[in-house]
C-alpha cells in the first residue's frame, strides 16, 4: 500500500528565512511525485511533478528534489504570500488507475 509521510506538520518562519519541507514515501514503482499548494477554502494548486531520483525542478522561490525514498521542497527567502499548506502525493503505479495518494501536508506560516 502506498504511504506518504510529510514533516514537519507545521512550520513557522520569519520572512527571508529559508527552510525545507520533507516528504517520505513508500510505493511499488513510482510513476510520479507531486507537490501542491493549498490555500484555505481552495483546492490544491499544482506546483511540480518529479519522476526519477536526482530530478530537480524550480519555480520562483521553490525548488523540489527527489531521491528514491523522499522528496524535499526547499523554500528560499520566503515571503508572507508563501504561507499555505503544502501537499505531497505519489501517483498509483497500476494500469489505467492513476489517482494520487496524498500526505497530510505541512502548514507553513511566513511571518513579516
Amino acid at each position, binding site marked *: 500500500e502506498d504511504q506518504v509521510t510529510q514533516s514537519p506538520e507545521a512550520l513557522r518562519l520569519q520572512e527571508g528565512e529559508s527552510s525545507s519541507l520533507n516528504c517520505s514515501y513508500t510505493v511499488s514503482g513510482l510513476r510520479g511525485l507531486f507537490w501542491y499548494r493549498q490555500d484555505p477554502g481552495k483546492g490544491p*494548486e499544482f506546483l511540480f511533478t518529479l519522476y526519477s531520483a536526482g530530478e530537480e525542478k524550480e519555480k520562483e522561490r521553490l525548488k523540489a528534489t527527489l531521491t528514491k525514498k523522499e522528496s524535499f521542497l526547499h523554500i528560499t527567502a520566503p515571503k508572507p504570500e508563501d504561507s499555505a499548506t503544502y501537499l505531497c*502525493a505519489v501517483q498509483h503505479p497500476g494500469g489505467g*488507475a*492513476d489517482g494520487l495518494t496524498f500526505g497530510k501536508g505541512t502548514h507553513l506560516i511566513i511571518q513579516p
Partner: protein
Amino acid sequence: EAGVAQSPRYKIIEKRQSVAFWCNPISGHATLYWYQQILGQGPKLLIQFQNNGVVDDSQLPKDRFSAERLKGVDSTLKIQPAKLEDSAVYLCASSSAAYGYTFGSGTRLTVV
C-alpha cells in the same frame, strides 16, 4: 483554460439525509476524480472515471456513496444516508496528458 467547476460550495445537512455534489471538468479532459478531504488531512481518492467508465472505486464506501459520469462530461457524487464522519471537503479533479491534474475549489459538507 477554464477551471474545474463544482457546486454547491457549501452544504449543511442532518445525519441520515442525502446530498449530491456536481462537477464540471475542464473541457476535453477524459479523466475525472472525486477526492474526500477531512479537516487536517490530505485528499483521499474516492473514485476515478475514464470518460464515463469507472477505473478505480476501491476506496469508495459503496454502501452509502455513489457516483456517475453521464456522457463522459459532468459528474455527480451522492451520499445516502449521510453520517457525521462524512463531514469533509469533496474535491473534484480532472486531468489530461498535456495539463496534468487540475482541482476544483471543492464542496464543504457539514453533517450535523
